[in-house]
């Protein structure tokens, strides 16, 4: 089953809008985390301006990615770890399977990782006969349901406790209960067995630091720590951009990550990993592998218009404030990344024409940019993506997505280039609007391409005369006094 289907954005959005349970969950999520993150930034000792400092840190890191990654790899290898640079998803998955086979791995436990969703790792491991169990509670729930995460950090936000109760009864054979603590206990018990039986633990990487040569994973359930220390092998996957140079820079980003993601001062579990267990360590894996994934990122890096998207640290703060995400949820975006970050990065990773609805179906309201812990200008990149769709783009191999729209804007450009022509057009439109059903001053139905508007809204009819026409005739003679 391929998980990539950004083409169905409109249909999936419609379905989500019609789902009252999801609507309530999304509103609750945004009220809690969206407002919470803004408050958490305000409470920063350095003030909210720290986001801009973080932006500069990320800018520097992405500009020196080659050097930083080399340094990180060198350090990890010195510590006895392995580092593999994967050029694409297939490369990364094959490496994982190869290592798993070499070590006789049959069962895998996973900590939450969006980059492994991006490369479809679970399905590919299953096809290779390796069972991978998600251990983040939310991920575990949606894995049982055979679904995909609908939020970067709250993957099961679309599930109610009643859904979860049914899933657990079916999959674990527990007595029916909708009591959240009881359900959590049941999951914990099942997951403990998985942790102990697993041969390999797979995690993502929240941030790597070149200076120290470590990777960091952040969680609130402690599952990642268990998944990365109990099994014999730990394999961590990271997008190649998730690195900073120095420890002091890394510390700023970690603090902002926790605030942006969950309005927390610090996550409950923050693990630093620099290699396999050392002789003096009491626990830890025998082998440590880091897979650094390109999968289209080099192409993004090569284009100054979109390089900024590589500054993203995948905290999901933008999802928590986006009014579009707040209505359509994560599944509508048809890929691992949803919300504003998905609207920019998915087209760049999977094809702009194919994922065009993602970047066009946003309002450019700018809430994402204010919420972003590293102050990424997402609206600017949405506009740049739309430009590649308007005219076609050689670098991204896009073709004009909607030639009719292109023509309409050419005509519009002609019409507005001259006031008299423009007014003739408005007069013709004013005559034309008489053909459509009206109630008072309200138009109830409009022809394409305006018909979508009047499905659920009325539209005002054109004024009998424009303001400027009346101004020209000196008809605007309102009294100076304000009553």
């Amino acid at each position, binding site marked *: 089953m391929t998980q990539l289907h950004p083409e169905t954005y409109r249909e999936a959005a419609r379905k989500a809008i019609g789902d009252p349970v999801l609507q309530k969950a999304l509103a609750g999520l945004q009220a809690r985390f969206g407002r919470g993150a803004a408050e958490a930034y305000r409470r920063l000792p350095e003030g909210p301006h720290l986001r801009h400092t973080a932006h500069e840190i990320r800018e520097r890191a992405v500009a020196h990615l080659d050097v930083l990654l080399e340094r990180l790899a060198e350090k990890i290898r010195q510590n006895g770890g392995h580092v593999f640079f994967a050029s694409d998803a297939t490369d990364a998955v094959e490496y994982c399977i190869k290592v798993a086979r070499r070590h006789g791995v049959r069962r895998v436990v996973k900590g939450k990782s969006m980059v492994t969703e991006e490369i479809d790792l679970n399905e590919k491991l299953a096809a290779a006969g390796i069972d991978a169990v998600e251990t983040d509670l939310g991920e575990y729930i949606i894995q049982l349901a055979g679904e995909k995460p609908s939020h970067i950090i709250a993957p099961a936000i679309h599930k109610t406790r009643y859904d979860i109760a049914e899933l657990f009864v079916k999959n674990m054979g527990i007595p029916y209960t909708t009591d959240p603590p009881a359900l959590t206990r049941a999951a914990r018990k099942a997951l403990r067995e998985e942790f102990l039986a697993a041969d390999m633990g797979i995690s993502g990487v929240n941030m790597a630091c070149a200076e120290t040569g470590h990777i960091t994973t952040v969680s609130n359930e402690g599952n990642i720590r268990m998944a990365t220390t109990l099994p014999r092998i730990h394999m961590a996957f990271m997008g190649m951009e998730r690195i900073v140079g120095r420890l002091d820079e890394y510390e700023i980003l970690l603090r902002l990550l926790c605030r942006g993601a969950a309005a927390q001062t610090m996550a409950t579990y923050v693990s630093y990993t620099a290699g396999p267990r050392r002789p003096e360590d009491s626990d830890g894996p025998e082998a440590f592998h880091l897979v650094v994934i390109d999968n289209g990122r080099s192409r993004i890096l090569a284009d100054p218009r979109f390089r900024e998207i590589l500054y993203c640290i995948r905290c999901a703060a933008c999802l928590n404030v986006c009014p579009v995400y707040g209505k359509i949820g994560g599944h509508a975006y048809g890929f691992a990344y949803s919300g504003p970050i998905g609207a920019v990065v998915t087209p760049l990773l999977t094809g702009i024409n194919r994922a065009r609805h993602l970047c066009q179906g946003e309002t450019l309201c700018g809430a994402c940019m204010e919420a972003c812990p590293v102050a990424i200008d997402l609206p600017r990149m949405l506009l740049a993506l739309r430009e590649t769709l308007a005219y076609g783009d050689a670098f991204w191999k896009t073709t004009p997505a909607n030639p009719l729209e292109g023509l309409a804007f050419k005509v519009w450009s002609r019409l*507005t280039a001259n006031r008299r022509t423009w007014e003739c057009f408005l007069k013709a439109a004013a005559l034309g609007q008489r053909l459509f059903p009206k109630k008072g001053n309200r138009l109830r139905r409009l022809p394409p391409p305006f018909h979508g508007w009047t499905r659920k809204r009325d539209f005002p009819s054109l004024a009998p005369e424009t303001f400027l026409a009346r101004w020209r005739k000196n008809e605007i003679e309102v009294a100076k006094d304000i009553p």
Partner: protein
Amino acid sequence: MECMTRTASPSKVTLFIPCLVDALWPEVAEAMVRILRHLGLSLDCPADQTCCGQAAFNGGYRREARRAARRFIEIFEGAQCIVCPSGSCVHMVRRHYPGLFREAHPWRRRAEAVASRTYELTEFLVDVLNVKDLGARFSGRITYHDSCHLLRGLGVKEQPRSLLRHVTGADFVEMENADSCCGFGGTFSLKYPDISAAMVNAKVDHILSSGARTVVACDAGCLINMAGAMSRRGISVNALHIAQVLAGVDFQRTCPF
């Protein structure tokens, strides 16, 4: 901002009329005329202006937007002070026009010069003229919707609120999520009408919960969207442009719906 606040108050204002206001809702522009004349300003309104090109720009059609920008700059560059009753149109001119031209291009300078003299109505009244009380009266409960480009693009948040708080008889209340997008988004509302309608209906629900009988905003686009949804749902909450509230009672009932 700097150029105006540093110099003396302007005596002459050039009106920049948004295309939506010009064609659909001329009362908003008339209300602005009354406000500015009331303040003793002499007004000028270039008769050949049409549209700032925002819709083309937001759709990714930069070339068409650039053409509109050149035309706008030619028309307005002689103006001392340009005032517009729309946050998003001013945002287009101030934040996006300069970037439409290459750094060293002569048009870049011209775009920047026009950008620095273009103001949204409420920021012009409060920040430039230092006027908060226009002497307007109103009766009933009012709530305010923050337009995205005005709030997050231009940073205008308190100016319209303080103007509304000074309206005699207006009971100003904040609605929940006043700063979240109403779902208009220009051509977005036509291309993704289901998402847009879901967003505006959420906004309408917040307006209703506030108990206000009138929702005020600084952008005709948002107002047409909110009023259109309320009209279809048979809700009798009035949607008014802030200029209409500030211009006095005879403007407070005129609405395209």
